[in-house]
């Protein structure tokens, strides 16, 4: 370690003495550096990847939407808001918007009601609990593509099972693939099929979190089972209902798989009676026009719509949350 020359001999203890703490100092510094930097290191993969594949594309959509941009030809000249003006003048866009909202309402509203009902039935001291819970969840693992192909056949206009059953009880066959509302009902039923069980379990979890003393108090007050459900369970479920509605808004307004595969052409029907906004986006960007500029404009418009509805949801939530407390208080006083 140290050379054996005499003048250095007397220095030796001194040197090792100040070398020793220096080594500890380095180790400490390394440790401190480890403690300081590691937290950032661990969260950085998420933030870096999310910035690249999530945030950047979303923001860059605004840039693309202000240019002529062809699927193969690439970026063209700057056109300002021309793409937005074009999209907003298309009757197909407004039709797609109407269809999207109609399908969304037809799928989310019944979904919440049915899921709460099934959850209320499941919220009992059942035998083989897990079996029943798994049973309602089964449709969740069926891909939307498979659901759409199956339901497309169930709802076939001429040789479909649903029309055959309706015919059996004397109802005229419904033109599921021709009528506007009928096609929306059929498509919504696919969404409902896949998500009711999932939301049932969310509601069930919330119901089981309701303190049992509240039910006991209600029973003492003479409330029947139905009254208990509407006066105790449902009010306490409100935050969960809002949560389910908000998450289904974000997904529901982007719906693509089910309507796209409702028939074999994927156009949304002869009169585009079930074409959704995302389907229109796809058609403009990758279909006949191959215009990425216009497709980006549609994406941006839809993004703003989802944002606005999110904010409306949020404000309604807050109002309900602040309203509910005094209202129930007033009721109790009477």
């Amino acid at each position, binding site marked *: 370690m140290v050379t054996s020359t005499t003048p250095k001999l007397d220095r030796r203890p001194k040197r090792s003495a100040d070398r020793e703490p220096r080594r500890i100092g380095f180790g400490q510094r390394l440790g401190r550096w480890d403690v300081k930097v590691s937290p950032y290191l661990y969260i950085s993969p*998420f933030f870096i990847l999310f910035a690249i*594949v999530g945030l950047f594309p979303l923001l860059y959509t605004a840039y693309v939407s202000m240019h002529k941009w062809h699927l193969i030809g690439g970026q063209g000249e700057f056109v300002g808001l021309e793409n937005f003006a074009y999209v907003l003048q298309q009757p197909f866009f407004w039709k797609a918007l109407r269809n999207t909202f109609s399908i969304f309402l037809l799928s989310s509203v019944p979904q919440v009601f049915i899921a709460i009902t099934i959850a209320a039935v*499941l919220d009992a001291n059942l035998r083989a609990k*897990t079996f*029943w819970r798994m049973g309602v969840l089964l449709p969740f693992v*069926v891909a939307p593509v498979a659901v759409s192909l199956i339901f497309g056949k169930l709802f076939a206009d001429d040789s479909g099972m649903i029309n055959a059953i309706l015919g059996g009880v004397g109802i005229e066959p419904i033109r599921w693939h021709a009528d506007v509302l009928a096609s929306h009902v059929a498509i919504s039923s696919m969404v409902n099929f896949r998500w009711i069980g999932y939301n049932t379990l*969310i509601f069930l979890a919330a119901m089981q979190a309701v303190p*049992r003393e509240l039910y006991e108090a209600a029973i003492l007050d003479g409330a029947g089972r139905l009254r208990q459900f509407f006066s105790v369970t449902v009010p306490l479920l*409100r935050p969960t209902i809002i949560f389910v509605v908000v998450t289904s808004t*974000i997904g529901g307004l982007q719906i693509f798989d089910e309507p796209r595969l409702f028939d074999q052409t994927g156009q949304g029907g002869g009169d585009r009676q079930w074409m959704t906004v995302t389907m229109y986006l796809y058609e403009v960007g990758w279909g006949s026009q191959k215009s990425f500029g216009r497709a980006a404009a549609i994406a941006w418009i839809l993004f703003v719509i989802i944002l606005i509805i999110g904010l409306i949801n949020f404000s309604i939530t807050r109002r309900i949350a602040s309203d509910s407390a005094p209202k129930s208080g007033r009721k109790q006083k009477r």
Partner: protein
Amino acid sequence: MSAPSIPVIQQTAGRGAARAAANRRGVSKGAGSDRRPGWVTYAVLTLVILISAYPLYFAFLLATSDAVTIAQNPIPSLIPDSNLFANFERVLSSDIKFWKSLGNSVIVSSVTAISVVIFSTLAGYSFAKLRFKGRGPLLVFVVATTAVPTQLGIVPLFIVMSKLGWTGNLIAVIVPGMVTAFGVFWMTQYLEGALPYELIEAARVDGASMIRTFWHIALPAARPAAAMLGLFTFVGAWTNFFWPFIVLGSANPTLPVAVQLLQGNYFNDMSLVMAGVTLSVIPLVIVFVFAGRQLVAGIMQGAVKG
């Protein structure tokens, strides 16, 4: 297992429900609900399950049949016919590249699930248990991004993928799915409750580096939540259609992209289409049989649509 459900209930059901759940934990189950329900309850549930299973059985019945029989009988007989394997063979020998798409789906879903679990656990551990500047705002940012419809960035994403020459390549589907804000949030919530500070401090006192502490202390503690997250990510990636459909196309498809081709190519032969649907549904149904219990528990602890 039970520890994280309070914060998760708070996330899904709001603060009131979380408080209620916390209260209830201390109290034994109430007397009213311990009563066994009557047969009506079971009858209703049986009906619900029959409705949720029937469409799958319907696909199976048609897959055992043939085009002529299906055209003549809109309501299939409940007893399966005998053409199942013949129809399976026709799917496998058709031009939809079934085996290739199955392999692709396995690769995409597994890699996505593993990657989401690793990155989410790493970030979740950091958010839940480590102290650093900017932790609060960054976590708020993560929570806010769970509500961002990133699917709407497809146009630039497609432009980037074509510039990189990745269109038609599985990597174009895998990379955008490698992290999710929800995953980070989920692991943060879980580790906050499930990993005591004492364990981390003990490891640090023993001289373990930060990454060793993560590997030997945090990772084992995170296992139950990580398994659920992996399962949900796997199912989500497996059933995903929109983006793989756009960026992969029919040359190198995942399973949903391949199966939907059947409808366009053979729409006059429903037995073939439904045989393809049945084949495509089988893998996840098998996963469901073995892991459905975890899926149920995961949702009830506050999973969000993926």
